[in-house]
């Protein structure tokens, strides 16, 4: 065996444990869900039968599915763009080494490390009528007429879900973009300054292009994460009130674990996977072609 082959074999051997775990934990369930999506599989059906594309056509011809799909996209669009804008702003502030920023760097990751379930419980308790922190505060400052169960109000439930996403994920953007900002050579800015570029131009022509790759990574990650996120909504509003916070991920959960219709749930899951795969490929290709 040549040295090159030996090295390749060693590489495969080192990778093998990870590949085995990947196949068992990721690939097999995805493949199983794919096959289940063409059946009437349910806990109440002893022998699942092949139903062709019925589960998919049922979903795609249901106006409720499209309403939920639209809401899911809105949630992803709002949450990810707010997280990015706020995360980048904070990263730029941190880079300026202003007084007190050392403390900001220390505490900024707290929302990120708190488990989602705890975050939701915390927000839910704050929004409870009569004695939730927010309502008590409103009463104290003479705005008693505004007190309400915020998660139970169709006008406020969805914005609150967006807010929870932003609150939790913004630190991740900040730290990632801050690290990327630190790696931009100072010489770029000095040269631009000599050429007479103002702050805005330096930001637009140097900072943003240099952040393209890290931005792509955090955006793709969070689009996927928000699109598939289930626990924020399920634990806070359950998809209500009157369906105003229902998204595809909660729909999958409800179909699988409330109605026990695994075939239908798998079909929604496969549709979601297809959409996200398409998004990731197109987005990465766009960014790469621009960078090239």
């Amino acid at each position, binding site marked *: 065996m040549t040295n090159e082959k030996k090295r390749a074999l060693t590489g495969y051997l080192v990778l093998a444990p990870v590949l085995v775990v990947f196949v068992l934990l990721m690939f097999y369930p995805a493949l199983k869900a794919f096959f289940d999506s063409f059946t009437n599989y349910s*806990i109440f059906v002893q022998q699942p039968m092949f139903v062709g594309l019925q589960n998919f056509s049922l979903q795609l011809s249901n106006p409720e599915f499209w309403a939920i799909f639209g809401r899911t996209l809105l949630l992803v669009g709002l949450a990810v763009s707010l997280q990015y804008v706020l995360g980048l702003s904070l990263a730029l502030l941190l880079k300026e080494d202003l007084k007190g920023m050392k403390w900001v760097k220390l505490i900024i990751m707290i929302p990120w490390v708190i488990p989602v379930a705890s975050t939701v419980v915390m927000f839910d308790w704050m929004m409870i009528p009569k004695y939730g922190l927010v309502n008590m505060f409103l009463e104290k400052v003479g705005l008693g007429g505004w007190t309400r169960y915020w998660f139970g109000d169709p006008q406020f439930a969805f914005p609150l879900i967006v807010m929870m996403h932003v609150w939790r994920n913004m630190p991740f953007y900040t730290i990632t973009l801050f690290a990327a900002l630190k790696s931009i050579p100072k010489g770029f800015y000095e040269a631009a300054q000599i050429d007479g570029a103002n702050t805005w131009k330096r930001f637009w022509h140097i900072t943003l292009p240099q952040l393209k790759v890290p931005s792509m990574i955090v955006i793709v990650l969070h689009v996927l994460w928000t699109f598939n996120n289930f626990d924020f909504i399920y634990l806070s509003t359950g998809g209500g009130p009157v369906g105003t916070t229902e998204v595809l991920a909660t729909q999958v959960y409800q179909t699988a674990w409330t109605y026990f219709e695994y075939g239908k749930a798998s079909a929604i899951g496969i549709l979601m996977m297809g959409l996200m795969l398409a998004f990731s490929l197109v987005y990465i290709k766009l960014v790469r072609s621009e960078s090239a």
Partner: protein
Amino acid sequence: MKAKLLGILILSLLGGLVFSAPLSLWHTSFVSEWSGKDAVIQMFEQNNDQDVAGDYGPALYRDVTQKLIIQARTGTPDVVESVLEQMFTFAKAGLLYPLDEFWDAYPDKNEYAQNAVDALRFQGHLYGIPYNTNVRLLLYRKSVFAENGLKVPETWDELINTAAYITKNVPDMQGFMFTTKTREVRAFQEFMSFYFQLNKHMFNVTPDGVEVVATEEQLTRVLDVYQRMFFEGGIDLNERGADWKALDYGYTAGKYAMVTVGPWIWSHRFEEDARGEVLDDTGIVAIPVADDGTPGTYMEVKPISINAYTEDPQGAWELAKQVTSKDFQLLIDSMSGVLSPRNDVMQMPEMKDNWWLSGFGKYMDTGVALDPVSWEQPQNFIIEAIQKVIYKQMTPQQAGAWLLQNLQRIASSL
């Protein structure tokens, strides 16, 4: 060295064949955080003479459902505690062991309240031993009623009017509270507590299938209670969509004058003295009855069941008997403030002389158990219908018709 390792391996394999695996028990009371957890585990472990694994399963019923469905076929757990709605789903999916033969030969069977045992039958077979039961009743603040010269409501109209009067005239006090959050099981149970006064069944289950026996008029009338309660001033509209936390903590914080709940709310007294004072000021009566209705309320029954795939049904039965024994039920039910389905337990001083438990015990015969179907889908439709009314998307009549239509559509799959 190699021979030694080989020997150990062979011995281990043989050991696995000779010694059977320990039995496993999933019981939320052994895992979830509550004041009686340590005492319950201690009593179980002291009296247990079987080999039982120390992992007592998930703490939440929702997780019990998912995990049992996924792993029941492995034979673990051998014994599982659940709630009635879950038990029907498990039984329908063929995951539970029919207990009829064991039960018929069980000397203690005559100690059990018949309605609690009957509630655990599915398609003619018994699938659980009841260990905990309760009914939802009307709890009211005695001092608020006395100070304002109010009569405790006995009809739906009186309930709605009294609630509106209190909200309007008693400072910092709301007359009544309903839970109405999406997927909140308590919202469903409250709805059923009113519905059972008009009809003791929602479905008729026969060997040929399931049919809806609820009528549009009955469903509309219950939904009308919700509309009137919210839009005639009994409940603040800004409290729509709230869940059990708002109700339980709101009542024990002295914010609501009346609620329809079960005895578990008693446990809040251990959190703060002030909550204990509210509970000491509480009167317990039947839920007001509809004009042409008969007394009836949602009855909860928690069963202990055996996994259909257990490798040791006899051992599992012995374990199930242990966690439903007289002493065990006395401890767990008295500490959690709920009723026992065993008459010999209810005769013990800890239960009989407890004003709270005897207050609930008086109305046990008005409890109606759910029909033996898989309730997850009807539950969601009922909550959706409530929300359509209180968020003004539909009138009670429209929501009643919508609900009936959906119940009829899914009946065959229940």
